[in-house]
């Protein structure tokens, strides 16, 4: 009984973290029932991953910006601008697409450097600078495309957005996807256990064993489920690999790189960070350069997926990305948030979109419901903080 009570107390302490996953599960189960099994059908899961990939990619960059206490409203326009540039480079200038991709990433970095300069070194609030960027880069996209759409793109470039890893075997479960899933699970289990053992050795562990096992089992189960579902359709989408690599890399960056830790320090207390010798301006500048590159990646994925560079591409993406970050538990005031939280937040939005579309809910109601979900998530956060004594 006592053990149960202490377990319960531990869980309430982790409420925000668990709450997010519970919300995700409830939403998935709800739509799975409401759509009579379509939601978790292999083809739909594959589509979910592919169609939400660019929002999830943007959310990774956005969560970093928001942790630092800033915001970026320009990412949707940057997606369009980079998409436009890729179209111009590949179809008009006839630059080989791999070279074009690299050039587009450079364009993204320059866009980020431009905005980062005004924010970090000139001291204009990010809200204003990126609002200006939202207008300016939308215009730049239209100019680059001369208000025309560009299509089609070479097939090899398109695989970046809508292609799959080569499949072996024609029927049943696709083996490569299962292998990737298995490798991911093994890597996850091994690193988790190794980390726990070393922490134990130095008496730094405070997570109960049962919770550790439960969490690990849940994550492994989730990966397994997704792998099996994907394997029974077309295999692994290439964007999933891109997304997976970005997630792992940026989780590590935010958790344990000097750069990532300085971002948390700046968002948590700018003055204290500056007095601790953090080069706050440089970190802010690099943060926006990074956001520019991530926006460029999202722009390339989106363009490749649609096989179209359009001046109106990416409209409203910034809002979806920001919503994903806040649903994922980031604090409006900065200093708090995680990459995985933002990913889960983005998935919640994606599944809501997808499920409601399948059910034939009109876009007006979709927008209404998404708005309420965002508000509820943040209200839950605020309530939770107040309950635990607040700050």
């Amino acid at each position, binding site marked *: 009984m006592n053990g149960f009570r202490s377990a319960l107390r531990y869980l309430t302490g982790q409420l925000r973290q668990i709450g997010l996953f519970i919300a995700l599960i409830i939403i998935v189960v709800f739509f799975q029932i409401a759509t009579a099994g379509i939601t978790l059908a292999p083809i739909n899961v594959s589509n979910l991953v592919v169609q939400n990939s660019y929002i999830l990619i943007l959310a990774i960059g956005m969560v970093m910006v928001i942790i630092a206490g800033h915001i970026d409203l320009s990412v949707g326009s940057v997606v369009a601008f980079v998409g436009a540039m890729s179209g111009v480079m590949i179809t008009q200038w006839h630059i080989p697409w791999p070279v074009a991709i690299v050039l587009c990433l450079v364009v993204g970095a320059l866009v980020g450097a431009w905005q980062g300069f005004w924010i970090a070194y000139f001291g204009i609030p990010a809200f204003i600078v990126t609002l200006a960027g939202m207008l300016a880069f939308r215009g730049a996209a239209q100019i680059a495309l001369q208000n025309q759409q560009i299509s089609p793109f070479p097939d090899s470039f398109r695989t970046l957005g809508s292609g799959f890893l080569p499949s072996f075997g024609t029927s049943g479960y696709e083996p490569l996807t299962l292998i990737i899933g298995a490798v991911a699970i093994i890597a996850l289990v091994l690193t988790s256990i190794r980390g726990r053992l070393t922490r134990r050795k130095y008496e*730094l562990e*405070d997570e109960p064993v049962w919770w550790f096992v439960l969490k690990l089992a849940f994550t492994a189960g989730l990966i397994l489920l997704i792998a099996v579902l994907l394997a029974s359709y077309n295999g692994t989408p290439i964007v999933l690999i891109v997304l997976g690599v970005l997630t792992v890399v940026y989780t590590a960056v935010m958790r344990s790189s000097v750069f990532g830790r300085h971002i948390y*320090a700046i968002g948590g*207390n700018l*003055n204290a*960070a*500056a*007095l601790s010798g953090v080069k706050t301006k440089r970190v802010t500048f690099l943060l926006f350069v990074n956001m520019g590159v991530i926006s460029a990646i999202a722009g390339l994925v989106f363009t490749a997926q649609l096989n179209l560079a359009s001046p109106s591409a990416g409209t409203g993406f910034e809002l979806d990305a920001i919503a994903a970050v806040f649903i994922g538990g980031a604090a409006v005031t900065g200093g708090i948030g995680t990459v995985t939280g933002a990913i889960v937040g983005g998935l919640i939005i994606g599944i809501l979109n997808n499920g409601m579309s399948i059910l034939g809910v009109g876009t007006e109601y979709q927008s209404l419901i998404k708005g309420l979900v965002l508000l509820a998530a943040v209200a839950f956060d605020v309530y939770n903080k107040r309950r635990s004594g607040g700050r």
Partner: protein
Amino acid sequence: MEEEAVTTNILEMRGITKTFPGVKALQEVSLAVELGQVHAICGENGAGKSTLMKVLSGVYPHGTYEGDITFEGSPVAFKSINDSEAAGVVIIHQELALSPYLSIAENIFLGNEQQSNGWIDWNKTNLEAAKLLNRVGLHDNPVTKVTDLGVGKQQLVEIAKALSKRVKLLILDEPTAALNDEDSAHLLDLIKSLQAEGITSIIISHKLNEIKAIADKVTIIRDGKTIETIDMHADEVSEARIIKGMVGRDLESRFPEHAPNIGAELLRIENWTVHHALDSSRLVVNSANLSVRAGEIVGIAGLMGAGRTELAMSVFGHSYGTNISGTVYKRGERIDTSSVPAAIKNGLAYATEDRKRYGLNLLDDITRNISGSTLGKLASAFGFVDSLKESTVAEGYRKSLNIKAPSVLAITGKLSGGNQQKVVLSKWMYSDPEVLILDEPTRGIDVGAKYEIYTIINRLADEGKGVIVISSELPELLGICDRIFTLAEGRITSEVSRKDATAEYLMQFMTREQEKTTK
């Protein structure tokens, strides 16, 4: 006369006791203010003067303290500032509370708008404001924006605002702390002329010459208790008499035994001059010279507004002020301290007086706060932090400094003041500086934790580091420092070794005002 005084007292506070978690800020404090007088309240920083005034003005509502307040002969129980202002008690805080982008007139009538049927009557507003401004001797147009006024004039606007509320008892908290001599003189004259109109004033001040100039009576508060009330007219009152009352406490508060082992000079600051961050014509630190030797604990004594923190922060990476000039030498060699990273690289550390605003990331855990200034030391070639080593380091400090927390993963925002301070100290100890500047290292910390902090300071000195301690508490400086500098109005006014220092001596030089050069 003494017997009649009871009937002519406008204010009587009896047996006021106010407790904050862990601290008794006021104990059985009594104060009687006679109608139509200027009554000064004196005491060291943290003695409880401001707390007493907050009790009086309803900032701390009735019920959160013990004791009785009688105003104009009848008992009162103010629940908010609105209550006390309605009764005619108006407090003007040290930090002015004006809205900078509104006009003088708008500020005066903020919350008390001159209206008819819900619409503001601008003519009446500006006309009434002009009348009030005339009374306080401010001849600016009432539509001038407050941000365009200097601090002295803003102070006058505050007083005009108080007059608009039909003030009977005006409380001024350190009114001249931020003013130049001319503005101060004007303000004191104004208080006198208000007195002639029958307005009673309570003035909190450190400046003894001002008190001598205008106060009828002085009440001295020390350690949250009333010590005495001196009649400035009856007795032959010298500044020394007031100083004795302010500092004359038993020096039995305990300090760890420490035999200093002082070596060669480590750090020397020469001709350090700093101007105010917002007003570059105002000198905040005026060609200060000081030094610290290896293994030495050097104190800086100064009253609020003397420029202590400004001195420290400007030395540490030019974190405060404009037009900074002067030189910093380490072991005789000139070093660059013009940015925080440079200052850290050259072996300096600065632990701020305001931990919550400038010292800690309260959202993050102990580990990450401790490693905050020194992440580079823990990082691999690729810029990734060795989190295991980081935790081990933090755990080491948790044990050796006795930081009371469930683990190093505890969020610093939830720790007590003493433990937060230990986290700040750990952070700077880990950066392995040669000279540490500790600004009010024991502010807001209970007695037990103070002792631990003193022990840590001694330990740092024993390791051969130079330690500079800035403190408002004279016993603390006298208890732990080997040498003490006094600072008044941005100038170093004296330097004294431990054996020659007394509280009276320090207070004398801390309150020494600059000889008037002009006028």
